[in-house]
């Protein structure tokens, strides 16, 4: 029974989810409540698995002569720790969806896909067999497709694009798995340990890496993410691209780098570092100028991956720990941000930043949680985003000091990208906070109300975790991150100093000093409410609204950047669009050949025969 515990979180959601998926949507079941219960059960089980330490489970599915297909499940410190958080996100999103998906048409399908996602990701995190890992991976990809289509108009296009891009990377994954099998003769992850010294292992590494970074959404294979961000429901974005896809993608990357391969080629870590640094800066530069709230957040979901990849690329303990911690932190605040955006979109009917404003008074809880998450993603101390970025920076600096080779020599480039990217992130979140919650309330949003507690509770939980993980980051590192990476507790990983609890206490004291000043002043004079000073002009509320959408036109109109921005807008740098153009060209060519004229076809037949003859004769 003790070992079966590994089986339940994988199979229970998968079975129920599969069932729900095929139930007609007209059948009004309490599928939401069912999903919540099952996700909660798996969450509790995942905590038990985490507490259990090492456990294994195997079930021989198929045996043909010496080919042995076994469902191998096992816990690793890394997998179990990510599992707890993935299941936690499952619970929070199920709770949130109870309200946000209440009016949707395809609820059974939606909840079925949510359960499949939960079960699939549990499978990925527990499986010790590459083929099963691949199957679970596909289940998550397919359920992402279903989930995106439950969005509004145009969501089919977004779902197709996501499926095409992730599916293509999954094909690479399959090829990589086969190559790894061919080279090592085993599918069991813990037994592989390939050295990246010759060409074949390097190709296999690159293929697997492609799968990992596409799922996580790093450059240049990120473009599915913003497109689906624009059209999919916010809860879907919060569950998959913001949280679980990140967890899985980076988990796979860590698996590749640490277990499947023994990384010996400096060029590969340079590739990783370039992807990481470029992802940070490029994605955030694009995010800054977006007008659609969810699309903007999606570009940040891309940009933040860069920190994780860069951290792993440093190959220093502090860098990898920072990358993993950033993965966790990013999943938390990005999930929170998407949930906030969903709440706002649901209550106002728009995600267009230009039409929002002043909602801080109307939706105080959403505002507070969104502000915390926004400050956290911008790396403002003492929140959690700061800690993990700070660790990644240390990793980069340590790499420069301790290692030799091109990646290490270029550390100033990586560090500048990472630290400057942080400032750019702050800039785009200032834009969001200004345009959504501060500024002035447009008259047509006068009656907006706060969302119900089904939706505020998940947001508050996530925001609270942001603060706690930031202030007590030592506990998180010692209990979660270091054991997951096999670093002994209390080990000297960090090179910098950040006494977060002391700093927080001192900040609180500082605020108290300021409050005291205000209190003293309030004895002297009363406060008075006055209309906004507008140089004496008589203007209506609408005329006085300055939304944040124009903020960074200064950047996008700057010489040199303008051309890049307009190229990006037209999709020149989107591999999917370029692939589409190539496909279009190919079909035009084929259409031109299939003109319906008999002589044309005869010519082709003759040419083909000639080639066949030539080949056959040549061989003989």
């Amino acid at each position, binding site marked *: 029974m003790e070992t079966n515990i590994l089986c339940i979180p994988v199979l229970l959601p998968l079975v129920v989810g599969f069932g729900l998926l095929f139930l007609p949507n007209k059948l009004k079941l309490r599928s939401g409540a069912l999903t919540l219960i099952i996700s909660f059960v798996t969450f509790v089980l995942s905590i038990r698995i985490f507490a259990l330490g090492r456990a294994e489970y195997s079930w021989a599915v198929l045996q043909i002569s010496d080919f042995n297909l076994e469902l191998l499940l096992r816990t690793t410190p890394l997998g179990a720790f990510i599992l707890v958080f993935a299941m936690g996100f499952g619970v929070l999103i199920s709770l949130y969806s109870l309200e946000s998906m209440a009016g949707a048409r395809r609820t059974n399908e939606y909840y079925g896909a949510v359960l499949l996602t939960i079960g699939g990701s549990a499978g990925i995190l527990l499986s010790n067999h590459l083929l099963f890992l691949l199957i679970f991976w596909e289940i998550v990809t397919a359920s992402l497709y279903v989930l995106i289509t439950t969005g509004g108009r145009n969501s089919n296009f977004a779902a197709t694009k996501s499926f095409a891009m992730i599916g293509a990377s999954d094909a690479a994954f399959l090829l990589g798995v086969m190559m790894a099998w061919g080279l090592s003769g085993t599918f069991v992850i813990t037994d592989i340990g390939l050295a990246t010294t010759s060409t074949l292992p390097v190709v296999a590494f690159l293929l697997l890496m492609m799968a990992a970074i596409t799922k996580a959404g790093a450059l240049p294979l990120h473009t599915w993410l913003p497109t689906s961000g624009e059209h999919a429901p916010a809860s879907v974005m919060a569950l998959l691209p913001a949280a679980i896809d990140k967890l899985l993608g980076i988990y796979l990357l860590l698996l590749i780098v640490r277990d499947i391969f023994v990384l010996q080629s400096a060029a590969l870590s340079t590739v990783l570092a370039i992807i990481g640094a470029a992802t940070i800066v490029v994605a955030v530069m694009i995010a800054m100028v977006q007008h659609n709230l969810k699309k903007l957040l999606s570009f940040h979901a891309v940009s933040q991956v860069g920190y994780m990849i860069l951290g792993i690329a440093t190959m220093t303990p502090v860098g990898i720990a920072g990358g993993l911690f950033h993965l966790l932190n990013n999943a938390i605040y990005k999930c929170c941000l998407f949930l906030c955006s969903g709440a706002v979109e649901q209550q106002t009917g728009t995600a267009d930043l230009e039409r929002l404003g002043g909602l*801080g008074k109307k939706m105080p809880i959403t505002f507070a949680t969104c502000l915390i998450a926004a400050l956290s993603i911008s790396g403002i101390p003492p929140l959690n985003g700061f800690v993990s970025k700070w660790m990644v920076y240390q990793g980069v600096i340590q790499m420069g000091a301790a290692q030799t080779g091109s990646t290490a020599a270029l550390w100033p480039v990586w560090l500048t990208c990472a630290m400057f990217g942080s400032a750019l992130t702050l800039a785009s979140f200032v834009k969001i906070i200004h345009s959504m919650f501060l500024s002035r309330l447009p008259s047509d949003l006068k009656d907006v109300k706060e969302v119900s507690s089904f939706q505020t509770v998940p947001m508050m939980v996530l925001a609270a975790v942001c603060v706690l993980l930031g202030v007590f980051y030592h506990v998180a590192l010692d209990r979660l991150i270091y054991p997951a990476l096999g670093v002994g507790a209390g080990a000297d990983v960090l090179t910098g100093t950040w006494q977060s609890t002391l700093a927080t206490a001192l900040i609180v004291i500082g605020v108290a000093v300021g409050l005291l000043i205000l209190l003293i002043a*309030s004895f002297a004079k009363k406060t008075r409410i006055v209309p906004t000073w507008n140089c004496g002009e008589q203007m209506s509320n609408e005329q006085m609204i300055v939304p944040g959408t124009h903020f960074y036109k200064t950047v996008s109109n700057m010489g040199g950047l303008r051309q890049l921005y307009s190229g990006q807008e037209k999709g020149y740098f989107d591999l999917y669009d370029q692939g589409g153009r190539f496909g279009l060209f190919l079909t035009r060519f084929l259409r031109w050949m299939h003109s319906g004229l008999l002589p044309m076809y005869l010519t082709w037949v003759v040419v083909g025969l000639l080639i066949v003859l030539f080949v056959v004769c040549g061989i003989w």
Partner: protein
Amino acid sequence: MSSALSNLFWILIFPGFLFTVVLGLAASWIVRKVSALVQWRVGPPFAQPLYDIMKLMGKEILLPQEAQRHVFIAAPLVGLAGVLLLSTMLWRITIAETAFVGDIIVAIYLMVLPSLALILGSSASASPHAAIGTSREMKLVLGYELPLVLAFVVVIIKTAGHVEPGQQLSLAAISEHATVLSVSGMLAFLASLLCVQAKLGFVPFDIAESETEVASGVIIEYSGALLAVWKLMHAMMLVALPLFLVMVFLGGFGTAGWPLVAGIGKYVLVLVLIILIKNTNPRMRIDQAMRFFWFYCGIALAVAVILATIGNYYGISWL
């Protein structure tokens, strides 16, 4: 318990709130007096900055009707707390030469807090002028963060050979080495000086609160005690930011004897440089400022990073 009490003493009395405020008010008097002398005026008496604060404290606080009042009131307090933490941290590290609160990365991030508080406060005040100020302040931060990061990289490269591997980020270790005494260090120092100028919101970078353009922009709706808190925060920044430059580039601030005198000299030197730049330049437009920081300062510092790397590699310390 005693450590909690001593922390409380540090943050409230010395070298925290009381000390920094007194020093900051004195520094802002120096700014006003020297500016006056440059412009052939007499200038204010020594206690004028204090009188201004007292006067503001006695005025009523006006709250704009449409404002998000919680954020509007909390913003100056958070800004004050941030600068207070930064200042206490820098002075503690100077005095005790141990780690306190954070390293150089933490210092760089804490320096963003006042600007961020200003941005949120102005954004919350529901005024179109303030919204323009918000945008300008944020873009200014964007502008100077790039040279500041590059200057930080230069410092790390230049001090790499002089500190133990584990101490690379320690402010106490960095401040023992005068990075400015090299070509790349000089470039980094000058660029950081301009960044500090922008952080302080002094001409030519007083774009966010330019009185003649957007009527004080970011602080247009602030009055009474809330404005007094902003003024206090600014005065404290006049202490903390030049001190940061002294520690990172000029070889630190001594605690006794000649090093102390030299430290005061360095601090005054930085302050006077800032004042002179303030008084001899016209205000930039925001796009000019961004281009200035990103392209001119950015390229100069990229050269500095390359020089420092070459110098480190071949052991040429003056590069």
